[in-house]
């Protein structure tokens, strides 16, 4: 239905997730189906809630310098580094197009 190959391919590009196999896709379809039950609730005239935190107070911090200066620790995580810079590829490496990828989605 809504969960078409195009949508799955689009999601794989955007989020770099890998649906891997039919079971992964089926799990997604079931999740969408489960969430669709919300449509049965009449929400006319009711403000949407987008966070369970909506009644909480947003804490405001004072503008003081309390963190930082941990270059060495941060760089420990880096696979490649040059003189305290993280090293990354020259640009984003996009996921190859569907036709060029080895993915089970092609056979869907």
């Amino acid at each position, binding site marked *: 239905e809504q969960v078409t190959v195009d949508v799955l391919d*689009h999601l794989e*590009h*955007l*989020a*770099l997730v890998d649906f891997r196999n039919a079971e992964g896709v089926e799990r997604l379809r079931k999740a969408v189906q489960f969430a669709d039950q919300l449509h049965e609730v009449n929400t006319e005239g009711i403000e949407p809630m*987008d*966070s369970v*935190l*909506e*009644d*909480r*107070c*947003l*804490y*405001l*911090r*004072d*503008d*003081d*310098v*309390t*963190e*930082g*200066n*941990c*270059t060495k620790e*941060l*760089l420990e*995580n880096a696979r490649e580094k*040059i*003189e*305290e*810079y*993280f*090293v*990354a*590829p*020259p*640009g*984003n490496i*996009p996921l190859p197009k569907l036709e060029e990828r080895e993915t089970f989605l092609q056979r869907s």
Partner: protein
Amino acid sequence: LASWVPVVGLEIHAQISSNSKLFSGSQVQFAAPPNSLVSFFDASLPGTLPVLNRRCVEAAVMTGLALNCSINKKSLFDRKHYFYADLPAGYQITQQRVPIAVNGSLSYSLCIDNKMSQMVTKTVRIKQIQLEQDSGKSLHDDARSQTLVDLNRAGVGLMEVVMEPDMCCGEEAAAAVRELQLILQTLGSSQAVMAEGQLRVDANVSVHHPGEPYGVRTEVKNINSIRFLAKAVDYEIQRQIEELENGGTILNETRAFDSKLGCTIPMRDKEGKQDYRFMPEPNLPPLILYDAKSLPVNMNHQQVVNIDWIRERLPDLPSVKRAKLVELYGILPEHSFTLLNEDGLAEYFENVVKQTQMKPKKVIGWILNDLLSYLKQHALPVKESPVSSFLLADLLNLLERREISSSAAKQVFEELWKGEGKTPLEIVKEKKLELIQDQKELEKVCQEVIDRQEDEVIMMVLG
């Protein structure tokens, strides 16, 4: 030949002037050792959470009020997702649904035909102001096919100011941004120095025929100064007109301004239209602001941002300062613009006026013609002027009391500029520039001249 209507809108990112970042306690500072101003949250290490900096909220409220916006007492934070090496979390925290301020306006002035004496006031609508995080910096090393990433800037607070497409050319865009820059600097909410990346401008440009719908727009980035902003916008308008007149089409794309070539070029293909998958930021409740009426009684002061309290403490904005200068000193409106355009010049002028008997209307000439041109020639800011306001006032007093002529005064000014520590009076005596007031002495000098040039005098008398 049909006429074209160019349409220009702007998205301006101003770095908030604060000690620490928007959602973390690491320091905000230009040019520090790479990755030294980065907290675990900025590096997006798992288990870290955003904590909102109160100062950033106040800066955004101040700016919203100065731009005549409605301040949203409840605003929300969202995540904008995209992948890039300098965005470690894979998303930016911004305010897409309900920003902190909306529906404002900014008035700015333009000179008609480059004549300062004919100024016209224009207005641009401010669509909104939102709080958001800055990204880190990518240094591209094409030679070694790699990018070096410095996260010092990642998480610094930004105010994005969106200006509606009410402008029509480079000059208007530049004037609007200049005025915004002055306002931000006056408020102190941002130092807005473009050269240090504290103020970044992207222009949205399109053209259409009068009466027809708006054309396809392009986004122009990589504009590093107000001067280049005008150039980039005007180039893009011309490019679009030429393309359309040659039967071509305009692509809805992002283009970069190349300042060396003076043109815009398409940026590296961003994989088609971006889908940012906006979603509410789950770790931040709504941001609630208060005013005098809604102020909660039992809440900790430090947790309350009171819009009215901030409004009462807003400094005089540039437009108000200019009007006051004109009213107080009788100078022309265009003079007030120049005074505010140079950092410290208005204060300098007022200091001179305080210390001299010369009328402000005459003093202004010395400030704008003499002082300013010397400063420009030597590329000095006002605060580094070798001639202090005290010395200039001293000089102008000599002139006002007719102890020297105005041409002599200009000579003294040139001498003062050398900064050798001499007072105007000392220079006058040294160079014998005093005006002779005594009648008898004047007669003596004239007689001497006549005596020395007897032949010429005889010729003159004979006609």
